[in-house]
């Protein structure tokens, strides 16, 4: 067996690393970087969800940007739309007093009454849930790449709808989204004073989802998804409801994308139509591929790193091209992602420095030399 850290220990180490980052940045006088880092952590949640669909269930989604946008825009619309406009509506009196509403001032200091961010959050998740089921149900009952096609078309529609609708702000997007008081003294907000707090909210959420997915993929559900990826027919004959499992994985990951959209929209106080663009969806796929597709850790790390570099403007005006090239490069040169071959190289290097007994993954199989390891082990990027 490969030498591996105990999961509990890995998560503790990761949490520790995430905790010291703000102090390191403060010490290096680079605290301003925390803003982009926080944003990258939210984007990593989208890619982490994609990892479940693509790396485990083996289905390609080209619509995750659209799910992110559904989350973000639902939240933005509901928390900026002034409900006091409908003076005559009978229900307004009741809703005004309920905790569902929030009286505040808009960007110009006018008093407005909007829905509270929590209501908007649940509405966004409900909408994403319904839409993901509507798209996934017909596409995933079949075998093959129907989900990729359906989600591609869906993403384009969402993009056009956002661009062509007045209440989504058309090409300008929506600004003036309020901060989101989560309770427990935590507020999702882009305010400078709350920068560190928000970094911790984002890393806490990412860590939580990482732990949940880690548990999931190491359970009967995770094995079932991997079995579907490998051989759908055999998986079905072994008692797995393949259509339902693919759908559940897809819906779960769409919900993660929408959730990231909600948080990031409150964090940056707005959202624009580029979030729903096809290029964004392709970028998420590229990031998942760069992280090794089925490696939760690799995907989280790579996507945080590359998104951070992109948000810092390191790729300049070639930003989208970089991710396109990345995807092409990985598909053609390293279908299992760059991290696994690197890790193998490292292990071989370490192994060469050790006595030759019990080296590498073949040690479990004394009568079977490395030459017999089948080549069909390499993971196929697109099943």
């Amino acid at each position: 067996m490969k030498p591996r850290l105990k999961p509990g220990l890995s998560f503790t180490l990761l949490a520790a690393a995430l905790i010291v980052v703000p102090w390191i940045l403060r010490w290096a006088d680079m605290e301003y970087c925390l803003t982009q880092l926080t944003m990258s952590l939210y984007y990593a949640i989208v890619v982490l969800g994609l990892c479940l669909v693509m790396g485990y269930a083996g289905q390609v989604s080209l619509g995750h940007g659209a799910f992110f946008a559904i989350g973000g825009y639902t939240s933005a619309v509901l928390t900026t739309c002034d409900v006091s406009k409908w003076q005559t509506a009978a229900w307004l009196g009741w809703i005004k007093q309920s905790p569902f509403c929030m009286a505040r001032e808009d960007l110009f200091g006018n008093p407005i009454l909007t829905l509270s961010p929590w209501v908007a959050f649940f509405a966004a998740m409900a909408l994403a849930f319904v839409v993901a089921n509507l798209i996934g149900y017909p596409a995933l009952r079949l075998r093959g790449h129907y989900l990729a096609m359906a989600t591609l078309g869906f993403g384009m529609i969402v993009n056009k709808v956002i661009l062509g609708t007045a209440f989504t702000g058309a090409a300008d997007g929506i600004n003036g989204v309020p901060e989101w008081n989560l309770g427990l003294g935590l507020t999702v907000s882009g305010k400078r004073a709350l920068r560190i707090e928000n970094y911790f909210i984002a890393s806490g959420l990412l860590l939580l989802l990482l732990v949940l997915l880690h548990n999931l993929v190491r359970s009967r559900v995770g094995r079932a998804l991997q079995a579907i990826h490998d051989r759908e027919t055999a998986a079905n004959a072994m008692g797995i409801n393949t259509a339902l499992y693919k759908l559940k994985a897809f819906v779960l990951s769409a919900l993660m994308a929408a959730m990231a959209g909600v948080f990031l929209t409150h964090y940056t106080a707005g959202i624009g139509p580029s979030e729903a663009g096809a290029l964004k969806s392709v970028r998420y796929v590229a990031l998942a591929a760069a992280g090794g597709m089925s490696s939760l850790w690799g995907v989280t790390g790579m996507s945080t790193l590359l998104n951070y570099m992109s948000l810092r403007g390191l790729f300049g005006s070639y930003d989208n091209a970089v991710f396109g090239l990345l995807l092409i490069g990985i598909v053609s040169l390293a279908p299992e992602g760059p991290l696994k071959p690197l890790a193998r190289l490292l292990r071989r290097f370490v192994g060469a420095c050790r006595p030759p007994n019990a080296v590498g993954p073949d040690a479990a199989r004394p009568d079977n030399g490395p030459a017999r390891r089948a080549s069909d082990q390499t993971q196929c990027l697109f099943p």
Partner: protein
Amino acid sequence: MALLEIDNVRHSFGGLVAIDRVSFEVAPGQIKSVIGPNGAGKTTLFNIVCGLLRPESGSIRFGDRSITGFKPYQIARAGVSRTFQNPSLFLQMNVLENVMVGRHCRTRWEFLGCGVRWPGQPKEEAAIREAAQTQLEYVGLAHLAECPAGALAFGERRMVELARALATEPQLLLLDEPGSGLNTREKADLGRMIRRVRERGVTILLVEHDMTLVMDLSDAILVLHNGARIAEGTPSEIQNDDKVVRVYLGGEMNHVAAS
């Protein structure tokens, strides 16, 4: 009463009739074999029984209920499991995990429970692992538990597939040419293994080309030719059936003699 009852089942691919109104029964505890030349429709018949293909007409009963039109996963839950003519293990997983997948239809925790490790879920997971380990020991491959499935030899793959199928706790086990690609010693092991499985109370429907194995193991034999049933009976009846010898056994015997 029969455990499996196939009644007038028909299936065609385009214009080619692969199974032409076949009827037969499998009694509980039996080892029944289906033989016939390549292309006779044996694999198609298996695919119909386990739900991968939907018959155009006819009905299938398993135990006391009709399973016609059921999805494969429902049929697996009902108690029918199988191995494939071309071993189809999950190559991204190790051997133990492959067998653990077989426990899927006998366990229950879903996405949420597994994600949060709800009390009881880790225990079920441990039970899955243990049951899979037991099946691997049963087929004599416990030492390969951690080995990647892709690194196995052909014969070992077949045995892991058998362990995976047994892990679903089937009442009826369909074995599609389990002996093909095995050497003489492995075939002898396989014969013993099939008998042991039957002694556990599992009914077996077997497709096999090795006539020594078939005649040795079977309680009853069904002969298919061009999708149609041409004979059914005990091994000795089949060996002495003119029609069978003409269309199949004769050729097969020559073939065996030649190789």
